């Protein structure tokens, strides 16, 4: 059977194939875009956090607009937290995973010229408290820590050389292109006078706290800096607990924070004490909502297209029952008929998909013009295309099998 026959049939009865083609094109355009959007929402949710999530309790919203907490108050909180039963480690911190209230942006430039904007996490002994996995190098030395606070103490890095920095594996790959990492220098592209950073350690993963930016391989764009939280007007704590005692530890931590800071906070402001997992749940709430919407649309597109192809092809097959009978009478096997209809569908859907991919890019460009969406990468187009082709073949299977079942004797009957 040559492809010429396929084409000539299509030309003769062009209405039904045209409708199938049109719907495949539009559906493919929608599917490419919506699958990409689903992926955009999923990425931060799937990204490994790198922290020991089930052992972590986070405390934030300790804010005092009237006067900064003193260094003694900050340390006192740490000491008291250590004494809570079930607590293994605790430290005051600025910038913590799943805590969006304290953000620190840092611009880094590698020796290869690559610039990245990363989130910084600050606090003494964070590797230990967060349960990060160090894959190369070392943790900060106690002598390397400098004091840091918002609206309070802020010691600039003024020692002779660059300050130590711990980066993630993903960052190491991007900034140093698989070469040597430890001991290498990074610069701040926005500040020529800055002394820069020297990489002393690499952790496996560490999820950034600007979750909106945790897409397209940027989820692990996070660094640790050697800072100890001192006098500050906004304070947070990371507390690592024994997972078996987590419930009791949360209550204990809450009590300690209330005792220590209750009187210092203005009315109406209460510290937030909750487990990492509940923060994660809350942080991804809007992501899940969007995901639900997009997933619903994906499902609807798939169902509608499948029903459509089935219905239209079914009718078209029925119209050609007599021709099928003639072909069977002339010696075509069932498998030939089946293959013919599958090939016909593949041909129509392929043309539709080709138009659909162009439509997808056009639609994405339009959406990007009006909304803050990311550009649909070329590599996403085949995803929608493959889904449509498979869907088409599946949908046409029913009508094609019915066609293959047409007995040759139909040819001799008048319809």
């Amino acid at each position, binding site marked *: 059977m040559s492809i010429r026959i396929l084409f000539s049939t299509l030309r003769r009865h062009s209405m039904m194939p045209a409708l199938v083609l049109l719907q495949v094109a*539009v559906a493919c355009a929608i599917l490419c875009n919506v699958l990409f959007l689903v992926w955009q929402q999923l990425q931060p949710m799937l990204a490994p956090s790198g922290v020991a999530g089930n052992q972590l309790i986070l405390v934030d919203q300790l804010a005092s607009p*009237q006067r900064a907490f003193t260094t003694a108050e900050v340390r006192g909180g740490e000491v008291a937290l250590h004494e809570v039963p079930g607590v293994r480690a605790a430290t005051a911190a600025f910038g913590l995973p799943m805590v969006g209230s304290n953000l620190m942006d840092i611009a880094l430039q590698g020796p290869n010229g690559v610039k990245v904007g990363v989130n910084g996490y600050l606090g003494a002994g964070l590797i230990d408290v967060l349960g990060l996995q160090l894959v190369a190098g070392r943790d900060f030395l106690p002598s390397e820590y400098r004091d840091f606070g918002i609206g309070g103490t802020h010691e600039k890095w003024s020692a002779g050389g660059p300050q130590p920095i711990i980066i993630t594996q993903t960052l190491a790959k991007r900034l140093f292109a698989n070469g040597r990492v430890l001991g290498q220098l990074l610069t701040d592209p926005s500040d020529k006078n800055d002394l820069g950073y020297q990489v002393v350690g690499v952790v496996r993963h560490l999820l950034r706290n600007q979750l909106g930016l945790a897409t397209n391989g940027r989820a692990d764009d996070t660094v640790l800096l050697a800072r100890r939280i001192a006098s500050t007007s906004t304070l947070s704590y990371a507390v690592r607990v024994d997972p078996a005692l987590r419930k009791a530890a949360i209550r204990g931590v809450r009590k300690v924070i209330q005792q220590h800071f209750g009187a210092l906070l203005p009315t109406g402001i209460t510290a937030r004490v909750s487990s990492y997992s509940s923060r994660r749940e809350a942080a991804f709430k809007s992501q899940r909502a969007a995901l639900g919407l997009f997933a619903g649309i994906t499902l609807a597109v798939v169902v509608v297209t499948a029903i459509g192809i089935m219905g239209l092809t079914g009718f078209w097959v029925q119209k050609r029952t007599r021709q099928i009978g003639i072909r069977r009478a002339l010696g075509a096997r069932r498998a030939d008929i089946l293959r013919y209809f599958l090939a016909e569908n593949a041909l129509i859907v392929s043309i539709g998909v080709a138009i659909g991919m162009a439509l997808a890019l056009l639609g994405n460009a339009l959406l990007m013009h009006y909304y*803050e969406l990311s550009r649909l990468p070329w590599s996403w187009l085949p995803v929608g295309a493959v889904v449509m082709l498979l869907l088409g073949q599946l949908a046409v299977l029913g009508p094609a099998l019915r066609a293959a079942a047409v007995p040759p004797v139909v040819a001799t009957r008048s319809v």
Partner: protein
Amino acid sequence: MFGYYFELAVRSLRRNPVLTILIVALIGAGVASSMVTFAALRAMSADPMPGKSAQLYEPQIDNWGPANPDVHGEPPLTLSYIDAEALLHAHAAPRQTALYQVAFSLVPADATRAPFAVKGYAVTTDFFAMFNVPMAYGAGWSALDDDKGTDALVISRRLNDRLFGGTDSVGREIRLDNHDYRVVGVAGDWNPQPRFYATGSIHVTTDHGDAPDVFLPFTHAVEQQIATAWGNYCRPDYKGMGWDALLHSECVWVAFWVDLPTPADAWHYASFLHNYAAAQQRMGRFSWPPNVRLRNVPQLLAYVHAVPEQVRVSFLLALGLQLVCLVNIIGLLLAKFMRRSVEIGVRRALGASRGAIGLQFLTEAAMVGAVGGLLGLLLTGIGVYGMGALFTPKIARLVHVDADLLGLTLLVSIVATVLAALYPTWRAAQVQPAWQLKSN
């Protein structure tokens, strides 16, 4: 005649049930996806104050200058106390209010009851008239209370029910933190969503969206050094400590609203605002040219992206899906109608006009559309219900099915199906009676 077509349609729909079910399923799925996303969009873009929102404006003044890198040249959403006081005193609008969020611990007179937290706003008395706050008892405080900063208090109906069992509590006293207030009014049900007037916390999504419990005079709150519950934004180099320093600082924390009933008022106020900023520049307070905004409620909501982009995009995608459904329905109706060429031939031979055939098939299409619409209603209900599980309760409460949505679902289904049926119907009406009769 319609009765006959109706009967014909029912017969035809029952003759090939598979095709009918496919068409109905397509209409249902298409219309439901549009309607569910539309319900979400409608809930989030609803006008919080219909009829009034276009004349309520929020002046913004850039008091940080171009050095502030965060906002791409946009002035902050709230004002510094310096600017808020200046605008209040200038009285350049018929009505105006400065406001900020406050929180207290309420100590019940009955010592056996435990204190509880209440939230509200420090406002000037124009607030009640500007934002259409109804009063169940009493009224807002006087302009004198505003000037003097007295301890007048307007409470919500909910708080009144809780403290006074819903009776007229005007003249009673309430203790907030360590200060006694006298109730001058009880607000009726009032809780516009989103809480656009609270520009200091407009980005906060954790807000429960409950009605504010208390309102007290702005001047009083400032004199009593009651801190904002939504926080102040200060420049990173702000080193001041204490209340007085905050009042004289460039920290922004006061929301400001003006009521400008006519476009001329709005124009005058905009030029007043520009001149104010220019004067500040001349005085040397600002080292940059005036950078001010005057946005009304719809403009402000658009500016802060009150409607999540995902919701808008999914509505557009759902409309695209509706298009796919339409294409399919055209094809399937064509299939359905052309199968009956013989029947059409007989009717035409017996004297039916093309118009009559057209009417018959359009009736049938409308019927299929209606049945598809019913399925669409069911699916929309399920979808909207499912949305409750997806969104935060605050938003989910707003997404609901009502008579409008039900009517729209049915209307869209029927209109869409009839539109899709136009081409198949035209083809059906073109059937040549002679050919059909001959071939049998």
